[in-house]
Each structure stands twice: as C-alpha cells, then as structure tokens.
C-alpha cells in the first residue's frame, strides 16, 4: 500500500508544503487544490500543450506529470506571470498583437513563449516555429503569435 507523499513546492513565488496522493496529477493539483484554473486541460495526454506550466523555467505538461515530481521545484502558472498587476512582456505582446482567438490554448502558449525567450533571446523564425510545435492552437494560424514572440523579444532587448 502506497501512502501519500509530502512535497514542498513553490508555485508562483509562494511555497506550499503539500501531502499528495501518489497518483495525483499536476493539472488537477493546480486547478482543484490551488484554484489556478488558467491551467487548461485539452487533450489530457501530453499532445496539445494547453496545460503547459513552467517547472524550474522549462515548459512541462501538467496533465501527464505526477504531483510528487514537483517536490523541490518552482512552478510558474499563467496567474503568476504578471507581477504586482504589471503584465509580463510576453503577455503585453500577445495583447498588442491579438495573438489569441478563443483563448483556451493561450495560457500554455504564453508560458511556452516565456521559456523560449528565456532560452533564446532573439530567436529566428524556424526556432520559434519549432518551439511552438509544443502548443496546438486551432484558431489562429500561429502567425500573430509568432509576431508577438518577435515583439516580446524586441521589448525584452530594449
């Protein structure tokens, strides 16, 4: 018999000590226990990327990750991206470039782009397309999202 697991995890700069069942999934933990409903579940099998959150700065699929794996990590969700009411430069770029339509993939997409720009300060077109391959958007044709990435990269450089 496997018992619940104690973990310590920092979510959006706040540290939680949690006791999680071993089969608890991160997406459910975020949405149900922490009410961070910006984490959307689309396919529920690591394909679509809607549930992308950042774990220690890297994009990760919340729907196929166990909560216990978060022990000792720092998680950023869409709710934690803006600081003291100021939008993150990627959020601003998405807003200014209308880089969303229905908005369901948008939180995961924005987090994925943040990670991209943290790793590549001035990504070229192919780097962006390859990176965005992790996030399906059925509404836009990715074009305005790519424009927002360029704009956010430029804004960050200034």
């Amino acid at each position, binding site marked *: 018999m496997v018992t619940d697991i104690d973990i310590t995890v920092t979510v959006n700069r706040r540290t939680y000590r949690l006791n999680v069942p071993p089969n608890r999934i991160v997406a459910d933990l975020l949405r149900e226990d922490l009410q961070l409903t910006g984490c959307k579940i*689309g*396919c529920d*099998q690591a*394909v*679509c990327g809607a549930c992308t959150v950042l774990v220690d700065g890297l994009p990760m699929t919340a729907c196929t990750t166990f909560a216990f794996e978060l022990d000792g990590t720092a998680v950023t969700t869409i709710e934690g991206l803006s600081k003291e009411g100021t939008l993150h430069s990627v959020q601003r770029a998405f807003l200014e470039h*209308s880089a*969303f*339509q*229905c*908005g369901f993939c948008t939180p995961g997409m924005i987090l994925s782009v943040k990670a991209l720009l943290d790793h590549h300060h001035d990504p070229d077109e192919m780097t*962006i*397309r*390859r990176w*965005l*391959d992790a*996030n*399906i958007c*059925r*509404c*836009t*044709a*990715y*074009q*305005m*999202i*790519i424009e927002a990435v360029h704009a956010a990269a430029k804004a960050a450089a200034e």
Partner: protein
Amino acid sequence: MGLSIGIKDGGGTANHAQALVKLLASGRAIVNAAAVEIGQGATTALSRIAAKILRLPLDWVRYGAIDTDHTPLDNGTHASCGTAVTGIAVMHAATDVCRQILEFAAERLGCTPDELLLDNWTIRRGNYAHPLEPMIAGHFGGAGFEFIGRGMIKVPNDPRAPLGAQSFFWMPSWVGAEVEVDRETGNVRVLQLVVGADAGRSVNSVACRGQIEGAALQALGQSLFEELRYEGGEPVNATPLDYRVPHAVDLPDRYEVVIFEHGGPGPFGAKGIGEAGMLGVASAIANAIHDAIGVRLTEIPFTPERVLAATQASS
C-alpha cells in the same frame, strides 16, 4: 502555382437576431446579444459598433454575459453571421438608445432632439456642453436610470429564391498556392499561400486577418494530411495523438492574407468573414500540384503516398 476562388452565401438564410444596449447613468454601456464569443471576436466587434454609434470610448462598453433568461434571442453563432447579422441588431439597439437619450436631454433642456449631439457622454448644443451624469441624477434621483435600446434584424423571406431568401451577403475568397513536389516521395510542400477575402468594411481588421489565416490553415491541414480515417466501421486515428492537426511547423514558408473592403449589408458596410478562408485552399493546392508536375489529385488529403501513386499512374 495554382489559383482558386471560393464562394458561399453568408449570414445564414433569412436569418434574424435581436439585441439590447443598456446605457447606465455613468455612461458605461452593456451590449446584450447572444453571439457567443468563440474566438471570432464578437465581443470586440459588437462592442465597437455600439461604441461608435454612442460616441463612447470602446473600453466604456462591455459585452454582457449571455443567458437565455436575459439576453435577446439569436439564432446561433454560426454562418459567419455575428458581425453582419447580430451586428445590425446591435447597431439598431445603440441607435435606439441614442434617440432616447437625446429625447430625454431635449426635454430637460427645453429644445428639440435634433438640436443636440451626444458625444463622450455629454450633450452638446451649439457651443454648450451638458454632462449627462448630473442631468440623469438630478432628474431620476435614487439609483439613477438605465436607458435601454432595442434592435432587431430579419433578413426577408423570398420564396422566389431557391433557398427561400436572397443571400444576405456573399463571402468570396481567392487563393493562390505555390508548391514544391518531390516526385520520388510524393511529398508536397506549400512554399507560399496567399488568401484574399472581403470583409465588406472591417470592424476589426486584425480579427478579420485572424479569421482568414486560421480558417485557411485548417483547410491546408485537411488538404495535406488531416483526416479522420476509418477501416470498416471503426475509426483508426480517433485520438489526439493520432489525429494530427496543423502545428506551427506546418505553416507554409510564406503565408499572406489580404483583406479587401468592398462593402456589405452589415453595420458600417461590414460582412461576415469567418468561413471564407476555408473555401479555396484545397483546390488551389490541387491546381498548383498539377501545374508543378502535371498530375491531377481529385481526392484529399494529398498525402505523399497518394501523390506518388497518382504520379506513377500518369507516367
């Protein structure tokens, strides 16, 4: 290179819609209509139509929550009808509420409404400005007042037309595709895709571009690889992993959308545009493949195997 024209009638057949615009004493407005925000930008477009007529800043207008107890009736969010059909209802509702306010102000100011102009929640009469908020508070007291305007549209029935009504507007689109075909593998790569469509007069040009781009990429996916496939009566790829939709890497190398503005029957000359981008993509690609290698594909998707088989059959 291949060309194609797409065309469909838009806005539904003999469609109708209703709308309310509520103007609060503060000058803030709520648009009530049942065009659901599915990403097409109904929230912004319909609010912008109301703001234009009421001469208010766009961020003073909110698109109200939709429930069938309170929101006026709409036939549904489909047939690219939101801006053109529901938009007309919103336009009439905003015009109606504007008329009520001018009549109210005329009565307060002892003049006729046609001497007055509504602008930025202030009544202008010649060189004089009369802010509306104190005027409303002074007259009504209490919690103030809400002006409620009503609007509707019914596209006329016409039994002489095949569908029972004339088409409300037409959605043309034009597609040009440039492809590269690997004769040995049958792999088709779209080097360039240009899609043009007519917004009538766009209410939000960025959203129009987004609609065309998004629709055309869906059509490109269906043209090249996307398909729900069956073997006998059983679907064989009905899982998100197996059922592949276009990703960012599937974008054509060069992808351009051109929005034309030739006027339409919607508010301020608008038309619907949401579906137009779907129409001509598959045929433009088929025509481009023929232009490139002289082989005609008559079945989508144009998978490498299918293209190769057609190539081998023709030689």
